[in-house]
Each structure stands twice: as structure tokens, then as C-alpha cells.
């Protein structure tokens, strides 16, 4: 009887220690330390051209030292195509899948600013070169406007859909003791014609993909 209690106690204490030991410690972000997303993203490609607009660049308020600057970056631009259709591009990079990066997740970011997410669906789109990439298409609505958006979540080098898939991708790295960095790539437009918005946003993403060199492209779209 006495032994049983002590065995139970020892097992529980061991579990606590093992859990602490298995916490991933190595940041994948160390490999991306010199990536400048602002420079990486082309301003003109295919039909699309960057427009200087009132939107302005969103500066991450949590910038500390020069070193930290690379660990949390955001890019915010407006592009227009030849027909004058405008889209807003937002890229958020974070050194870990938590905190600052989570905040940029559209499913959190939009409702926090007073939008309602009317619908959301995941689709796997075949990109030039044959790679299927999961994209999430959502329609957000506020009192003033309807804003359909398309976004892609990168966990380390793996593109995933929001939700369970993203957690599984994080797990894949975690079980190897690595903390994956992440990118949220989002394209949105103010358009109540959601089908048209979906098509234009997809065109933007595939054109962007096609126009980038392999190694730069991998930073935004992942490798698998």
C-alpha cells in the first residue's frame, strides 16, 4: 500500500519534469534573421502595381533593438491592377507562433476591430509549378463596408490552413524541439461582390508567386 502511493507520486513528478524537458527550445527564426520582408516583396509585378495611398505603413509598436526588428515585421501596401481594382496586402512575420503573430490572424484581428466574419472557407489552390497551397477565404463585414479577404498561414516552411492544421504543423516542429516562426500573408479588398473579390485576390497571389525568385518566394509561400 505504502509503495503504491510513492510510485504514483514519483511517476507524477517525473511526468512534470519530462514535460519541462521536452519544451521546444530552438527558434527556427535564427535561420531567417536577415530576411527583410519589405525589400523581399516586389512593388510591381504582372498586372499589379504598388499604389502610394493614405493607408500608410503599419509600424509594429513592439520594436525594440535593431535585432528585434527582424524578429517581428509587418508590411502593409495597397496595389492596383490595370483596370484600377485595388487590393490591400498585409504580411506579418513573427519569430514564434504565439503572441505578436496570433494578433495578426484575421480570425482574431478583424473581429477585434469591429468586423463580423460572415463566412469562411478553406480551399487548396494549385499554384504555378504544381504546388497545392491551402488558402482561407473569408468575408468580413463592418457597419461601413464589406471586406472579403484571402490569407495564407506559414508555420516554419509549411503552408497550412487556419485551425487544427496549423496546430498540427506546429506540432511537427515541436516534437523535434524546434519553435517554428510564422508568416501571415493576407490580401483583402473593399468589395461587396465577393466572387469578384475572390477571383481578383487569387489572381494577385498567383501573379505574385510567379514573379518571385525561388528563395524569396519560399519566405512568403513556404516550401510545402
Amino acid at each position, binding site marked *: 500500500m505504502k509503495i503504491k502511493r510513492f510510485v*504514483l507520486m514519483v511517476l*507524477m513528478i517525473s511526468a512534470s519534469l519530462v514535460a*519541462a524537458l521536452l519544451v521546444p527550445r530552438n527558434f527556427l527564426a535564427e535561420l531567417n534573421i536577415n530576411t527583410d520582408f519589405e525589400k523581399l516583396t516586389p512593388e510591381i509585378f504582372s498586372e499589379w502595381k504598388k499604389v502610394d495611398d493614405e493607408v500608410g505603413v503599419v509600424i509594429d509598436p513592439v520594436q525594440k533593438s535593431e535585432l528585434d526588428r527582424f524578429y517581428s515585421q509587418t508590411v502593409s501596401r495597397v496595389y492596383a491592377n490595370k483596370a484600377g481594382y485595388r487590393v490591400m496586402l498585409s504580411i506579418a512575420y513573427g519569430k514564434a507562433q504565439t503572441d505578436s503573430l496570433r494578433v495578426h490572424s484575421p480570425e482574431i484581428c478583424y473581429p477585434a476591430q469591429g468586423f*463580423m466574419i460572415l463566412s469562411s472557407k478553406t480551399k487548396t489552390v494549385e499554384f504555378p509549378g504544381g504546388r497545392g497551397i491551402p488558402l482561407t477565404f473569408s468575408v468580413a463585414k463592418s457597419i461601413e463596408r464589406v471586406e472579403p479577404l484571402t490569407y495564407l498561414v506559414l508555420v516554419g516552411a509549411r503552408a497550412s490552413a487556419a485551425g487544427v492544421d496549423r496546430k498540427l504543423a506546429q506540432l511537427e516542429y515541436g516534437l523535434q524541439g524546434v519553435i517554428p516562426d510564422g508568416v501571415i500573408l493576407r490580401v483583402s479588398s473593399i468589395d461587396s461582390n465577393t466572387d469578384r473579390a475572390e477571383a481578383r485576390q487569387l489572381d494577385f497571389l498567383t501573379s505574385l508567386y510567379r514573379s518571385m525568385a525561388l528563395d524569396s518566394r519560399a519566405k512568403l509561400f513556404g516550401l510545402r
Partner: protein
Amino acid sequence: MSDAAAHHPGLPAPQRPAIAEWFPIFIGLIALYVPTWVDLSRSIWATEAQAHGPIILGVALWFFWKQRIAIHDMPASPAKAGWPLFILGLLLYILGRSQDILLFEVGSQIIVISGLLLIVRGWAALRAAWFPLFFLFFMIPLPGAVVDALTMPMKLAVSYVAEYVLHAVGYPIARSGVILQIGQYKLLVADACAGLQTLFTLEALGLLYLNIIRRDSLFRNITLAILIVPISFAANTLRVISLSLITYHFGDEAGQGFMHGFAGMVLFISALLLIIAFDWVITNSLAVYRRLTKSSSDCHKRKV
């Protein structure tokens, strides 16, 4: 087993020293879950969406504590399922804690404790502790998608009713989804105002109330437990209405600042009052019903 007691036939049945027996187990549970609770308090328990966490934990611990003597006095009849369940619980804990999967880390509490009860006492102990174990399910943070799916209809309903009522008494109010426009102010009915968190907290406190103010009627207990859902809805609506009025009459700063906490207080007090009121109504109706059926059966007996 106390050897001294076994050698003295005159003494009552040997008493197992409770503290000595359970102490190692408590140490183990502390090693596992205090780090979990500390991390939770530093992260999601601070958010509005999960603020019910510590309340659920407190209430569950209270219910376990209440059962402690009953469980301790049970004869030890360990169940075979105990060890596998316990080990499974520990594995889930290790995976959940190291890989940041709260579902596993927090959920493992239920499995580990169930396993321990089965190992040390058996199925009877598990049955005695079913309620706090079931309660611990409410501590598990649900995935965002699930919370959104459940919370959105509630938020919409609360916004709809709040707008309807204020409009009916003549206020300039309009609504788009969960955004209310009253006068020149725009208010967003956020998750905190009309979400699952308040529902869970109220359900927890309501069940605690039921356990403290005990009555024997199963009907009363189940009815009240279910009624807490619409009561929570009504209380949330009252909170949104009062916040809208405060913002309209005293401005944005009043509505968003100290008054926000006050409105929260309004919510809880009104909910508790409603629960007590319903309890009074149910209990008295039951008493009247019983008296009526009793007297009619007396009537029948008097017939010759």
C-alpha cells in the same frame, strides 16, 4: 494500516491515517498541475474569454474537498482500469504541456484524477467524485472556432434584444450585426459582453448555489441548472442595455472605463437575484403542488 490498532481488539476498526496516505498523491498532483495553473493565470485566464477558469477550478476543488471523507472511508478495491487510465493521463499531460496543447494539458486533469481514484479506492470513489470531475470539463479552453460558433448567435440575440428594448422606449439606436449605434456612439458587443465565459461562470456559481442551498427535489435542481442559460442571456442583455445607456448619457469614456466594471457587477447581481427568485418560485410551487395532491388523496381515504 495502523499496527497498534490491529493488536487491540477493543478499539474500533483500524483507522487509516488520512494525511499519510494521501500526502504523496497530493504532492504529485501539485507537481503536475500547479505549473499548469500558474501558466494559465499568466496567459488566457487574464483574458475575458477565459476568465471563468479560476472560478471553475475553485468550485471543482471545493466539491472534491466536500467528498474527501466519503472517499477516504471507502474500502480499497482497486480497479483494473486505474493504471492504464493514469498512465494515459500522464502521457497526455506530457504531450499537452510540452507542445502547448491546452486541450491535452488541462483535460489530463480529469483522466489523471480518475485514474488515481480507481487505483487507490475503485469505482465507488469515481462515482462519488463524478460531479467535480465532470465540472473540470468546463476548464478546458475550447478551440476558437467552436467558441465563435457558439458565441456568435448569443451575441446577435443579445444585440437584437438590447436594440429592440431601447428603441421601444424611444432611444435613437440602430444595429448592424453586433455593432450598436446609439446617438453618435458606436458600441461593439464583444465576446466578453455576451459570450460563453459569463455563461460558464454563472453556471458554475449557480451549481454551487444549488449545492449550498440544498433541496431534495431532483426536479428543482435540474430545472434551475437549465434555467441558468436563459438567466445568463437575460443578465447579459441587461448589461448591454445599461452600458448603452451609460455611454449615451455620460459619453464614451464613462462607458468604457470604470462603468464597464460596474455593468459587469450589474450582470452578476441580476443573474444571482434571478436564480434565487426562480428557486423561490419553483420550491413554493412544488410545496403547493404537494399539498394539493396530498389533500386530495386524504379526501379519497375519508370516503366510506
